[in-house]
């Protein structure tokens, strides 16, 4: 029983990083209705900008964080212009494949400059894990968990309490109608994309900081974990992204403990497959009614 609870705790802590990734993913999907496969690699690029400053100039954590976010936003803007803005609305497949092509491009760009397997990243904290009773929690994981909650609250305020958020929701609901209301769709999508990339930059900083290292494989990992967590929670739902991330973390931690390493990813994909076939909307997938209510919610 102690094992089971400890696994759940580990899972929730692991899941916080998935949740952080899924928030940005779901924001982009919510507004574009298209999948951005190069989300992971673009925030990885940000993390490598951070690590470059850390290695070359011994920059402190705040500067590294700022550089990571800035790098992620720049890469995100590049992706948005090339793969989403330039390809017309109907061609969702073309957007997806194009974002995959840019993924390959960003990954190779990073490996050209950083050919090693791993690079150091400024650690989040040196603090010892604290314990209560028989259980342990790592401080950096707790920080990630809290950050995920704070970001979710922040995003909720922006989406439901500001004019920009109203515009985002309008575009997400019906781009054509939004345009008739005088909303500049291109600009709204661009800034929402930039915001999602900034969130991704924060996520990358926290995750790389918790491990105190970064690898060029981070892009692939981030895209897949973020995507699975998003699908489990329900595409386009922000609380769903958090829940999905935590669920994924707990399932991985339990199967790692009870079944062994090789079953960890297998059970994650199995869970995803089951969800897609039986409940494609995910945990908190929006039914039509809730979506309409959210759409008419005024600022």
């Amino acid at each position, binding site marked *: 029983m102690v094992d089971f609870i400890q696994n759940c705790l580990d899972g929730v802590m692991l899941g916080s990083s998935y949740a952080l990734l899924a928030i940005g993913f779901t924001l982009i999907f919510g507004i574009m209705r298209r*999948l951005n*496969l190069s989300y992971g690699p673009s925030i990885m690029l940000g993390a490598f900008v951070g690590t470059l400053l850390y290695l070359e100039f011994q920059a402190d954590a705040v500067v590294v964080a700022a550089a990571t976010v800035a790098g992620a936003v720049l890469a995100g803007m590049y992706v948005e212009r*090339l*793969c989403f803005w*330039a*390809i*017309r609305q109907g*061609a*969702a*497949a*073309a*957007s*997806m*494949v*194009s974002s*995959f*092509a*840019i*993924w*390959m*491009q*960003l*990954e*190779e*760009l990073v490996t*050209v400059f950083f050919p090693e397997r791993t690079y150091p990243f400024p650690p989040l904290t040196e603090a010892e894990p604290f314990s209560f009773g028989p259980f342990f929690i790592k401080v950096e994981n707790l920080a990630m968990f809290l950050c995920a909650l704070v970001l979710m609250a922040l995003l909720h305020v922006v989406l439901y309490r500001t004019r920009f958020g109203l515009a985002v929701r309008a575009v997400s609901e019906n781009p054509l109608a939004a345009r008739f209301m005088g909303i500049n769709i291109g600009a709204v999508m661009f800034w929402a994309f930039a915001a999602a990339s900034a969130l991704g930059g924060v996520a990358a900083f926290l995750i790389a900081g918790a491990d105190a290292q970064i690898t060029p494989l981070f892009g692939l990992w981030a895209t*897949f974990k973020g*995507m*699975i967590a998003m*699908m489990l929670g329900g*595409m386009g739902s922000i609380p769903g992204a958090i829940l999905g991330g935590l669920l994924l973390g707990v399932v991985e931690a339990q199967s790692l403990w009870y079944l062994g390493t*090789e*079953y960890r*990813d*297998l059970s994650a*994909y*199995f869970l*995803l*497959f089951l969800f*897609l*076939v039986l409940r*494609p909307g995910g945990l908190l997938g929006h039914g039509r009614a809730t979506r309409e209510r959210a759409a008419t919610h005024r600022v």
Partner: protein
Amino acid sequence: MDPYLVSVLSNIGMISFIALSAYLLLLVGEISFGQQAFFAISAYGSGIATAMWGWPFWLGLLWGAAVAGLAATLIAVPTLRIRGLYFSIATLAFAEMVRLIFEIFKYQVEIDGELVGPDGSDGFRDIRYIYDSDISQTEYMFIIYGVLVLVLASFFLLERSRLGSIFRMLGEDPMLTEMQGLNATFYKIMASGMAGVVAGLGGGLYAHLTTYVEPKIFNVMLGVHSLAYGLIGGLGTALGPLIGVGIDIGFLESVRAISGYRMIVFGGLVAVLLIVRPRGLLDERAVYWLRQRVRRLKSDVRSD
């Protein structure tokens, strides 16, 4: 022939199968990230048949393709109820499950004092049929292209048949298809099964060329690449995916000057291409235009 050229051409041929398989699903309007699963199932299936059960090569190849087709049909039943992006992610999840199952799949028998068979993440060694029967690399390349030509011919027949029109109509508008009294789900499952067979033929050929398969080759990168080939080359004709493969492997891999930056060039190229032509180089319109030209040329020749 130059061995390097032979190996590049053989690679192009084998990857063409999986690209054609993804293309077939694109025709019916579904995006699959998971065709590498059927490639893998058949690579293992046909390898087991020839190396462990002692079957002849052709039988092993057909067996692998049949198993892959069956798996594709079975998996299409639950996944094709869900549409669009959900289907794409479901195929991705399925393919990763298949890969991870092969990571733990062990089935070995002793042949001539040696253990032969899939050994989890260590892969499946000694699929030696081609070498034991003295087929040279060049001859094997012709076998690959022979099978590829057969598959292409069936694609062209398909395009001219009623079934081909139904597939294209499904890709255009499933609702309209249903209104014609056609069962959209049935035809999609059929397309999926056929795509499984096509990918399976490639997988079987692949396993016998390399003599060694390991699960990590069949990762999602292979699947997304094969999907991208169709979209680069064009969705108007079955030659489209082959053009995509040719551009990627044939052109970029052979030009040594950009060897370290291949993906940077390829990625940028694809992104720009998809802006100009979202349905690829040889899209439906281009194919129609070409057909018109050919027809006009023919009638000109006749009137002269």
